[in-house]
């Protein structure tokens, strides 16, 4: 097959593969993509909602805790007069509050309006200390109730205090409780948010009030710019990369009169782990789908293009046969017309020459001196007219629709008949005719006289090709399907490659002028085709030629 044609099939294959693949993959990708997008949006919404609600609830519970202990201290100061609040009474109050609030306090003290520590219950030695210069003391005098940020104080341990003032002037006193920083820390940090969930508080100035899992310890300063500390209402939500390069989701809200910022956070990886897992599964399914589509497209296209290729090849063969048949038919028709018209003048020529020959036999002309020349010329005219007649008759038998006599034919016997006719001629040229018959060759239903004509023609051609000394082999056998095969091979000169395709063309001959009409093989071709068979030729120059005929066991009805 020519390279150009192969290229066009490759192009066709690529074109179909591309079209089919794109047509199948695009909707697939669009549906997959939009489902993933929907799912992603919904997961993001869920995670945001979860974090927002968590930070809101957490804020509420911390504020409730602070409010409750403040209230408890205020109730205590209301109920106990200042002069009764010595260490023993304080111990009782401390015990009952510890019991009430689950040991939320570290210590408790009573301080007078001058800042002197009058009574104290707790692990530190703070009795007699003066707080008049402490920032918290000034705040509580001013505001009556004060909750401090975490600071070190005299004990040099991070803590924060809740202080309540009762009474004014000399009878004014302050009940101060220190909240257990560790306990408060665990209250804040106690966020049930997966493996990476975290909650912490920073002050407006940017100091950690509780420990942050990723970040700093209590009272350490946050990294500058890592958290925006400007005040706002409600809850804010954002995604950020932390100091270790993790992407985290954060929700924040201000509490304690905008002094503390509560932050709840979770790693993006964990927050969206479900989404990522789904994304991975979706990707695998998508890739598998695309792969499947690609494979199916490729295989289907290959099958399709092969079928087209095969159909084209068959069409080409049929076209060639059709062209050959059409060529034979049209040439046949034209030549039949010409031959018929030539026959009449030819008949007249023949008769004229004959009449002259008749005349030459008359006594009156016997003495003519050029008699021999005349006779010779007339004979030649008659001979050439005869040659013309032979040509026109062959042409006509090629074109004419002969009335076939179809009957059972024993091909082996038919070959015997034909060989009998030519055997003596072959023997003269020292050519051996070898017959290799299939012993149980079935009878075929065909036209014996036309088959005889074909065989005679092929054998004569073989003898002509050999000229002197050689062999003609005639074989019979069973063909493909319901057919028999006949082969006539010779050891003659062979047919040149460029002539091989023309041997069945009418008027094609390699014999010298006057020796062959070039009609024999085209007549054979016409006959075999009409009988529903097939004739083909193979040849090698210098080695010989083989004609192969296949004939159906039974001719199709109506042919």
């Amino acid at each position, binding site marked *: 097959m020519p390279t150009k044609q192969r290229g066009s099939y490759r192009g066709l294959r690529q074109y179909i593969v591309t079209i089919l693949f794109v047509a199948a993959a695009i909707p697939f990708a669009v549906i997959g993509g939009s489902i993933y997008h929907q799912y992603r949006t919904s997961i993001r919404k869920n995670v945001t909602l979860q974090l927002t609600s968590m930070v809101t609830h957490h804020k509420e519970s911390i504020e409730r805790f602070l409010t409750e202990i403040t209230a408890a201290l205020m109730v205590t100061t209301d109920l106990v007069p200042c002069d009764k609040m010595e260490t023993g009474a304080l111990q009782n109050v401390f015990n009952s509050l510890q019991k009430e609030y689950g040991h939320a306090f570290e210590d408790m003290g009573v301080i007078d309006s001058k800042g002197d520590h009058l009574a104290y219950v707790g692990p530190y030695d703070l009795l007699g200390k003066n707080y008049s210069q402490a920032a918290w003391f000034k705040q509580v005098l001013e505001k009556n109730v004060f909750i401090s940020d975490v600071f070190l104080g005299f004990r040099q341990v991070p803590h924060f205090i809740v202080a309540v003032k009762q009474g004014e002037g000399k009878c004014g006193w302050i009940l101060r409780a220190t909240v257990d920083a560790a306990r408060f820390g665990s209250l804040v940090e106690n966020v049930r948010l997966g493996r990476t969930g975290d909650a912490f508080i920073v002050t407006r100035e940017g100091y950690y009030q509780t420990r942050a899992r990723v970040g700093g310890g209590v009272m350490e300063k946050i990294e500058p710019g890592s958290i925006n500390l400007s005040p706002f209402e409600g809850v804010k939500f954002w995604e950020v990369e932390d100091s270790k390069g993790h992407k985290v989701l954060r929700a924040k809200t201000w509490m304690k009169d905008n002094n503390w910022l509560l932050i709840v956070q979770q790693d993006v990886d964990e927050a969206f782990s479900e989404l990522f897992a789904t994304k991975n599964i979706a990707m695998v399914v998508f890739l598998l789908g695309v792969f499947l589509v690609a494979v199916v497209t490729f295989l289907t296209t290959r099958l399709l293009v092969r079928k087209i290729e095969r159909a084209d090849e068959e069409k080409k063969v049929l076209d060639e046969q059709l062209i050959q048949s059409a060529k034979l038919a049209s040439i046949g028709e034209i030549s039949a017309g010409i031959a018929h018209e030539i026959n009449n003048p030819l008949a*007249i020529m023949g008769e004229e020459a004959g009449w002259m020959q008749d005349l030459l036999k008359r006594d009156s002309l016997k003495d003519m001196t050029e008699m021999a020349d005349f006779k010779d010329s007339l004979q030649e005219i008659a001979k050439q007219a005869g040659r013309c007649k032979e040509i026109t008759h062959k042409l006509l038998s090629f074109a004419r629709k002969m009335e076939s006599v179809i009957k059972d034919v024993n091909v082996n016997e038919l070959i015997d008949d034909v060989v009998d006719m030519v055997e003596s001629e072959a023997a003269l040229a020292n050519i051996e005719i070898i017959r290799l018959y299939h012993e149980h060759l079935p009878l075929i239903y065909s036209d014996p006289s036309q088959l005889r004509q074909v065989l005679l023609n092929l054998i004569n051609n073989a003898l002509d090709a050999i000229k002197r000394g050689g062999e003609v082999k005639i074989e019979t056998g069973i063909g493909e399907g319901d057919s028999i095969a006949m082969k006539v091979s010779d050891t003659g000169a062979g047919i040149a490659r460029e002539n091989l395709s023309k041997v069945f063309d009418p008027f094609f001959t390699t014999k010298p002028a006057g020796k062959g009409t070039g009609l024999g093989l085209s007549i054979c071709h016409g006959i075999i085709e009409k009988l529903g068979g097939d004739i083909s030729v193979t040849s090698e120059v210098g080695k010989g030629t083989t004609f192969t005929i296949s004939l159906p066991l039974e001719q199709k009805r109506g042919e």
Partner: protein
Amino acid sequence: MLEPRILIVDDEERFVTTLSKRLTERKLDVVGVYSGKDAIEEVTNKLYDVVILDVKMPGLDGVETLREIKKINPGIEVIMLTGHASVDSAVEGMRLGAYEYLMKPCEIDELMEKINGAYELKKDRDERIRQAEIRRMVDQRPA
């Protein structure tokens, strides 16, 4: 022996004249005409033994002419002459009672052979008809 009377019918005038001369040279009594119509007229007016009839002619063609001739005189033997392509017509002619057909151009010897064969057949049949008529006359004679 009487010469067979031959009628040649062909639209090719030169063919008719030359063949006529050749057959006359062979001691036959020959008349030539150039159409089916003339042939019918000839057969109607004169007695012929054998007609040599071209199959393909303008006007009345060979087969139709044969049919008419056989209507007029069924005893006449007809030899059809055909250019090969009209063999089917020639065969049709034989079905209608033609003696034989020959392909143009034909050898004079072959034609003579066919003419003789046809003439013999006609003579033989005429003889038998004659015999039969004699028998009938003898049978009809009052005892």
